């Protein structure tokens, strides 16, 4: 017998076991077809997961997902595209599975939220009233934070921090480059989407250069003095790429302070570079709809209640994923998915007149340094006052002295994780 049947039956048993509590709620469930309306903005790892799980948790709740794009291009492992280890097609998902879960999917852009009137306004599909709203818009680039880096500049100096055409552009530039060229990656200060991402990207570009353009050099100009999984990345770079990758941290003058896209110049306080390829990952903030809704604070990100993910700034609006300030919990797809499953249950409880319950969440992020060479960071997080804090003694990165077999296994697990989680998110 497969697990599916076993679990289903078990849950049904649990339901009859909990009959007293269930009976109290049941008449209300039957009385009206739709108990409540929940609108979700953003169909990424956070929003799509939330929408599906909320429908499943309580099918009497009407769930509408507003997503601006017809298909979703996933960022995790989009760095492998540069190494020729994945295609962008492998990263692309549709919303059919989400619709099949009973979620109404509206392909449109949410342009405003009237928090007092509890209405979301879209570009061309009208208005959507909600009892509760979930905002999971991911990031937007913080235009203006890096002088010279505007929308036009992204065509010369791609960020590729939202996967899709930007990823393809950066790959094209790398392929067009001559052997012996300089590639610069400009990495931002914290907080930003996917803390290990720039260094996985450096690894994947180095893999490509090593095979096709071995005289080339990769320079990481960083606005920080340390970075996620640093020891493991540097160990892997030494082992696989020799001295091809050079990392310059903040106190060594690494921070990119301005760019000039026309001349192709990248400036730090001490130096000026004109690389063959410049991948500028600029400062970020919560998706702009969060500002429109009044749930972002002065930092550009959204504070949340660590139990219910409800905004302390606007009642009945919940925020999760990259847009939220989840403190110790990193901005990752794994976090967004875990938060979404938790938040879906909390919202179902709140809409049924019950309180949200404090719980524990986990995160795991794999990074690929080369073929058969994977590393990870894991963490377990609990609400503590207004914060999500890492449980003391838990989490951390792969051991630096782990046997090579672990690196092979973690590369395999990374690949499996991507298939499993995207199946859970998009069906």
């Amino acid at each position, binding site marked *: 017998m497969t*697990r599916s049947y076993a679990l*289903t039956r078990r*849950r*049904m048993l649990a339901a009859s076991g909990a009959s007293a509590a*269930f009976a109290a709620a049941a008449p209300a469930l039957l009385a009206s077809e739709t108990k409540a309306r929940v609108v979700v903005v953003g169909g990424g790892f956070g929003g799509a997961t939330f929408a599906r799980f909320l429908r499943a*948790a309580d099918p009497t709740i009407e769930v509408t997902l507003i997503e601006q794009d017809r298909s979703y291009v996933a960022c995790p492992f989009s760095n492998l595209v540069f190494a020729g280890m994945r295609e962008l097609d492998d990263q692309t998902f549709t919303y059919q599975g989400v619709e099949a879960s009973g979620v109404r999917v509206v392909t449109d852009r949410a342009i405003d939220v009237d928090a007092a009137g509890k209405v979301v306004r879209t570009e061309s599909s009208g208005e959507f009233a909600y009892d509760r709203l979930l905002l999971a818009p991911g990031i937007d680039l913080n235009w203006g934070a890096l002088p010279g880096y505007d929308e036009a500049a992204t065509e010369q100096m791609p960020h590729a921090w939202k996967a899709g055409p930007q990823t393809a552009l950066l790959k094209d530039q790398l392929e067009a480059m001559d052997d012996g060229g300089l590639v610069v990656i400009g990495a931002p200060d914290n907080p930003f989407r996917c803390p290990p991402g720039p260094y996985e990207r450096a690894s994947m570009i180095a893999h490509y250069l090593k095979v096709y353009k071995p005289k080339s050099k990769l320079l990481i100009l960083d606005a920080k003095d340390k970075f996620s999984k640093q020891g493991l990345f540097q160990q892997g770079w030494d082992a696989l790429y020799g001295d091809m990758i050079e990392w310059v941290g903040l106190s060594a003058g690494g921070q990119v302070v301005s760019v000039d896209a026309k001349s192709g110049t990248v400036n730090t306080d001490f130096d000026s570079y004109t690389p063959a390829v410049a991948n500028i990952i600029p400062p970020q903030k919560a998706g702009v709809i969060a500002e429109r809704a009044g749930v972002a604070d002065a930092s550009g990100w959204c504070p949340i209640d660590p139990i219910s993910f409800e905004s302390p700034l606007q009642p009945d609006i919940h925020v999760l994923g990259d847009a939220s300030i989840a403190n110790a919990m990193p901005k990752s797809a794994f976090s967004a998915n875990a938060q979404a*499953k938790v938040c879906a249950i909390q919202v179902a409880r709140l809409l049924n007149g019950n309180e949200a319950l404090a*719980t524990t969440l986990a995160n795991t992020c794999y990074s690929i340094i080369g073929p058969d060479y994977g590393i990870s960071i894991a963490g377990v997080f609990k609400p503590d006052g207004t914060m999500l804090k890492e449980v003391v*003694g838990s989490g951390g990165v792969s051991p630096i002295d782990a046997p090579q077999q672990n690196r092979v296994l973690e590369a395999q*697990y990374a690949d499996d994780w991507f298939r499993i989680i995207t199946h859970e998110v998009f069906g």
Partner: protein
Amino acid sequence: MRGVVVGALLSVSLGVSGALASDASTGAAALLSASCSGCHTGGDVDTSIPKLDGYSADQIRDLLTGFQTDDDVTLMNRIARGYTAEEIGIIAEYLGTKAE
């Protein structure tokens, strides 16, 4: 239902029960177990990450407790150390397959 991930299943079956929204202990168990399905699927998905198919509650409890002091695994030790014995018990009961 074959080939459906544990997470989706969890939710589908929870939907049938409706209990997580109304019953505090079911809700708490579902919340605590929510992170697991990010990696551990069920059904016939082809994966080398161990699936939870067919593990009893006792087996899951023993595995998670053992991971807390095991340094020969890739990462479950780092995760398991974040949970108390009580939490491990709740997760095991929730995800464990009931004896036939």
